Each structure stands twice: as C-alpha cells, then as structure tokens.
C-alpha cells in the first residue's frame, strides 16, 4: 500500500506491506532520518517523539497508515546548525545532553509544549515533559526549557519589529 505525507516540508510516498508499521521505522529506515530514536517501543520513554501536524506523538506507537496526508516534523526539520530552533539553541547554551540519545525526543516534546504554552511553569513542564533520560539531565533540561521560552519570545519580538 502507498502512503503519502510530508516530512520536514518534503513530500514522500512510501510503499509498505504492513500499514501498522510504526512511523518511527518508516522515518528511520525508509527515509533515512536517524535523529528520531528508538527507546522502549512502548510509547513510554519518549525518545521517538516527533510532530504530526504540529502535535507531539510517540512514533513507535503511531501506525504509518495514520500519517496519510499529514505533515511530519522530525528533529532534522526543527532547525539546523546555522539556524537552530530556539529549543535547540537553549539546549546548546545550557549544555543539556550527556550521552544525548534521548535528547531529540525531549527537544521535540519541548518544541510542541512551547507552541501551546509559551511560558511554561514548572508544573507545566512536569505535566508535559514526561520523557525519560537515563543520564538524569532533567535539571539542565528544565533550565533549557525556560531559556527556550525566552528565546522564542525574543524571536517573536524581532519578527514583529521587522514586520
């Protein structure tokens, strides 16, 4: 069966026998975007978090058939070295990662949160950022999330002034 969708702004059509294949494996193994990680495969750890139509989803538990006609954003599409997303910038400034494996999932979850809650409180962070980091970088992540909120706000102000 063919399934068509956009990933990071580019249109893709994939042919796949099992339409229940997790989106994670299509993104990693067919589209060769390795930034999204496999962690638990049970929608528990959040390492596989990406965005579908702007909403954070656990791609290990998201059948590829559900992505038909939708827009997917992976960590590769969030920003790049020259023009990082505010969350990526904040992650760099606060030197968040240790081993780094789980960080794309955290960054994608945070980016989704800031779209809904531009200035998240500690409670908002506790409720919404429930991914798992075995290195225990939670303290630095919390600082980075708040820094990302500041950076997002500054970016919006700059864009407003330009327009």
């Amino acid at each position: 069966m063919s399934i068509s969708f956009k990933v990071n702004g580019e249109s893709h059509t994939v042919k796949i026998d099992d339409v229940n294949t997790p989106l994670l494996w299509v993104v990693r193994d067919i589209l060769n975007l390795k930034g999204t990680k496999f962690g638990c495969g049970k929608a528990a750890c959040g390492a596989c978090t990406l965005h579908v139509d702007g909403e954070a989803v656990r791609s290990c538990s998201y059948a590829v058939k559900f992505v038909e006609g939708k827009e997917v954003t992976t960590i590769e599409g969030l920003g790049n070295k020259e023009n990082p997303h505010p969350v990526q910038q904040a992650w760099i400034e606060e030197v968040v990662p240790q081993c780094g494996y789980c960080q794309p999932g955290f960054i994608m979850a945070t980016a989704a949160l800031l779209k809904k809650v531009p200035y998240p409180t500690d409670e908002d962070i506790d409720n919404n950022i429930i991914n798992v980091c075995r290195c225990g970088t939670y303290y630095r992540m919390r600082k980075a999330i708040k820094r990302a909120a500041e950076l997002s706000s500054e970016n919006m102000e700059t864009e407003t002034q330009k327009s």
Partner: protein
Amino acid sequence: MKTQSILFLSLFLVAVLLWATTGRPIAPIYIEVPTDEETALSSEEAFHKMMDVLTHERCVNCHPSDNVPKQGDDSHPHYFGIGRGEHNSGYQATNCTTCHQTENNPYSGVPGAPEWSLAPHSMRWEGLNRFEIAESMMDPERNGGRTPEETLHHLTEHELVLWAWTPGVDAEGNLREPPPVPLDEYRGAVEKWFEEGHKIPSK
C-alpha cells in the same frame, strides 16, 4: 383357487402391515425449547448483568475519582504522571493522542479507540458500588445531562465503550481481559433494563 387364496392372503398381510406402520401412534421426536418468557431476564437480573460489566476495570479505569486514569487489570495509576488535564484528555502538549490512536497498536501494546479520553469528573465511578454507579449514570446532574435514551446509546453504541470487548494486547503482548459478559448478552441486558424502566434494585 389355491393361487387366488395365496394372493388374497398376501394382499391381506400387506394391508395389515401398512396399517400397522402408518396407523400406530408415532413417538414424539422434538426438543422442548423454553419460551421467550422463560428465557427473559428480569429487570433485576438484567441490571446485575449490566453492572457486572460496568464495574469491571475496563470501564472504571476511565471513570476515576481522583483525576488520574488507571491502567491494567490491577487498576494502577497511569504511568508517567498522566492526569485528566483541562479537557479530560491530558495536558496541553502531552495528552491522550500523544500515545493513544483510534485503534489498538499491536506493536507497542498501547490501547486505542476513537475519542480516547477520561469520563468527566462528574462521572467518577471509582470507589462506588454498582448501585451508586447506576445512580450516578442515570443522574443528569452527573451524567453530562444525558437522557435515558442517550445513556442507553452511550452504553451500547459508543465506540470507546465497545472497545472494552476488543481491548488488544498490553505492553507485554498479553491479551487484556475483556468484561465478564459477552457483548451481545451485555447489550441485551442493558436494553432490557432500560425497557423495564431502568429501576435500580434495592441495595
């Protein structure tokens, strides 16, 4: 003459045999089946059959009293600190649909159905007995303003409710336990109880 006598005797014997086989009363060969009246549940029996389902964890896990969804046959609090949120579907950016889709996921063991969410807080059933649940269910102040017809529809047609009979596998790949009454029997019992005036038996 002798030949005629033999022929007559033979015809007589054939006639006797025919009479013997067709004229004798035949033993009745039928199975006695109970009438509808005999098989019909009483309203009280229908109530208890319905409540055997509605008190099962497949139902009560999503009708919590403390804003925390429950999981599993042991009704443990939902992992990861997930809570009701403002709209009964989790928090702003991490909500039910972050993990739960419109159908069960056989790979992750994450259950799913359309409109996956908690019942509103007014519909809390956790900790109530079957009679109290029925009272809550029929009380428009607590059931979301549903009429009896709408409650009947919710109980027998809502896809999220019917998911209980196809609950899929858990994270270990083991089949989840469905409610203790088959779906058709449950539906029949619910319809009967409503037809009979949805009277809650005395406790």
